[in-house]
């Protein structure tokens, strides 16, 4: 805690807490059957995006995946609009068309999430190209999982970013699983993501994705490198998903992940660790107040979503083209 500013630590914790509370609330409400779309929650994986959120500007671009709630929120995406989107409401960030897997908030540079693994990696790379052409010092964040590493689109995109020296930051949250599949059936033994990314042409960084301080320090270096125009940057942060791949429950009973492994990671909760550090600090009251305000913010978001109108049924055949002809 020494050597690392308390106010930043507090801020990091608050952001993690916010993501966790939102996600847990979704999980809680899901069984009501009003959020009628697949949801991929980030519980357990809050550190990387929370850390990132202190290091990027609304003018920076970001894209993400099916598991995009945390990334959207961390980038400053509108909470109400996200929850409303999951409820399929008119006030949703994609007006109900996209659901949990298609979040967007262009006002903060969050340019979309995709339900197709690897599909948004080229998009984010193109945004990095735009950033470079804009000459405004923007960077483009591309969130991805360990599974997406296996898609050719990752490789092709990174190669292109290296050729063009683009300000693209590929942030891989390695949670060891793609749905139920462990890494060893998908990638060679002892694969080192950073070594791989480096050989394709990125500068690489890695850190502890279950420690928000480590995540922050790693990302700070990475963002600095990327923003300085030196070229594509790849970051691996190892972390762990607590709940089932898709849906609100825990699925530990299925046995595809060893109990010991799950326990290990849950004991290694980035939020608990940060809260523990805070306990001895003066900011802890502030945090307590924040948590209360947060509860209200989340309540409000769900109320907003529930009270929002359904989208006009006519809208489903609109906006297929930007100009109807």
């Amino acid at each position, binding site marked *: 805690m020494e050597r690392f500013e308390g106010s930043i630590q507090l801020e990091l914790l608050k952001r993690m807490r916010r993501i966790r509370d939102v996600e847990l609330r979704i999980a809680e409400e899901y069984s009501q059957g009003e959020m009628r*779309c697949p949801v991929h929650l980030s519980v357990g994986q809050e550190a990387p995006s929370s850390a990132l959120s202190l290091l990027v500007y609304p003018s920076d671009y970001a894209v993400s995946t099916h598991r995009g709630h945390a990334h959207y929120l961390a980038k400053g995406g509108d909470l109400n609009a996200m929850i409303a989107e999951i409820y399929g409401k008119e006030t949703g960030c994609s007006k109900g*068309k996209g659901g949990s897997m298609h979040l967007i908030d262009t006002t903060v540079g969050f340019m979309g999430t*995709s339900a197709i693994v690897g599909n948004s990696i080229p998009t984010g790379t193109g945004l990095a190209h735009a950033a470079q052409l804009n000459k405004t010092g923007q960077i483009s964040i591309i969130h991805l999982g360990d*599974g997406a590493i296996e*898609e050719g689109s990752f490789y092709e995109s990174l190669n292109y970013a290296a050729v063009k020296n683009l300000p693209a930051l590929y942030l891989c949250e390695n949670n060891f699983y793609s749905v*139920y599949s462990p890494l060893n059936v*998908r990638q060679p033994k002892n694969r080192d993501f950073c070594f791989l990314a480096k050989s394709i042409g990125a500068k690489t960084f890695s850190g502890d994705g279950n420690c928000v301080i480590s995540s922050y320090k790693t990302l700070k270096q990475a963002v600095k490198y990327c923003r300085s125009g030196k070229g594509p940057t790849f970051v691996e942060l190892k972390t762990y998903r607590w709940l089932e791949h898709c849906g609100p429950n825990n699925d530990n009973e299925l046995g595809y992940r060893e109990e010991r492994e799950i326990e290990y990671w849950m004991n290694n909760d980035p939020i608990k660790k940060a809260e523990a550090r805070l306990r001895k600090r003066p900011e802890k009251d502030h945090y307590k107040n924040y948590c209360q305000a947060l509860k209200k913010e989340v309540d409000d978001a769900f109320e907003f979503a529930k009270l929002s109108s359904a989208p006009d049924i006519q809208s489903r055949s609109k906006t297929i083209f930007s100009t109807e002809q």
Partner: protein
Amino acid sequence: MKITFSKAINFAIRDSMRDDNKVICMGLGATDPKGVFGTTIDLEKEFGSKRVFDIPTSENALTGICIGLSIAGYKPLLTHQRLDFALLSLDQIINNAAKAHYMYGGEICCPLVIRMIMGRGWGQGPTHSQNLQMLFAGIPGLRVVMPGTVQDAYSQLRASINSNDPVIFLEHRWLHNSESQVVYDFSDQDLVTQSLVKSGEDITILACSYMLPEAIKARRILKEKLGVTADIINFRSYRAIPDECLIKSINKTRKLIVADTAMRSFTIADQLSNNIRDLLIDGNSIDIRILSMPDIPEPTSHFLTKGLYNDSYTIISKTCELLSKDCRGLINRDTELKPHDVPGEWFKGPF
């Protein structure tokens, strides 16, 4: 004994693997605890991990890898949990699998089966619900089958695996829990023929995949309430060539509804109707209606998918329209078919 559609798929794979040790089963989740909606359950246990295995998320290469296996004499079965994911592999499917036998002058065969599951409802949204059968059906060298019954699930999959050509096996997510008895048999013809499943007098309904059970339900109501009887033909082989049973039926009824799960611009029904008009005597006087999805990406919100899908209700309406009957009161869509975005009680979401 009744089994589910999923089980029938599972048994078809199992029996194919027992009969032919060249058959190999792979796909994301093929060895999962849930076994791709139950369809690959227990296979690894029986056949070992050399023949049943999980794969990396590399749809494009994996398709080509299956092609390599197939031209070396193996019979790979590749499964995609959604058709939408297979769009990554269209180069391999169109430029390689479909043409391999032809472009090498018949030197090699490419016996490869690609299962693609097609979603609907529960917020599957624009990229988890596409029914793009036309992408494959229009490519010479590919066979496209769309099982609509539990029996098809078994026999068409076995025939697909048994075939020496690449087969695209399109499996509707909403069929997985349908139940029926099954005859554990199959023939080559299962890949290229339609079948008459109900015989009637007044109209011909050609229905594919999930449209089939909905058509059967519609028929029951039409018969009970209006005394109208329909020929129902299982459009299980997705081809524009009218089958004998279809021709016979249309010659009788002179009225045809084609119920496809595809979008309007992506249904083969147009080509099929033109072929029917060309082939049949006085073809231009046959009354043909196409039931399809509208030409829009499927929105995610359940508020926006309401009334979007075809089901027994829309089949009844279309039939009544064709027969100039009043369909009001025959079926209350809102109460009897509710909620509209799940296949039934068994579906607990979210995928």
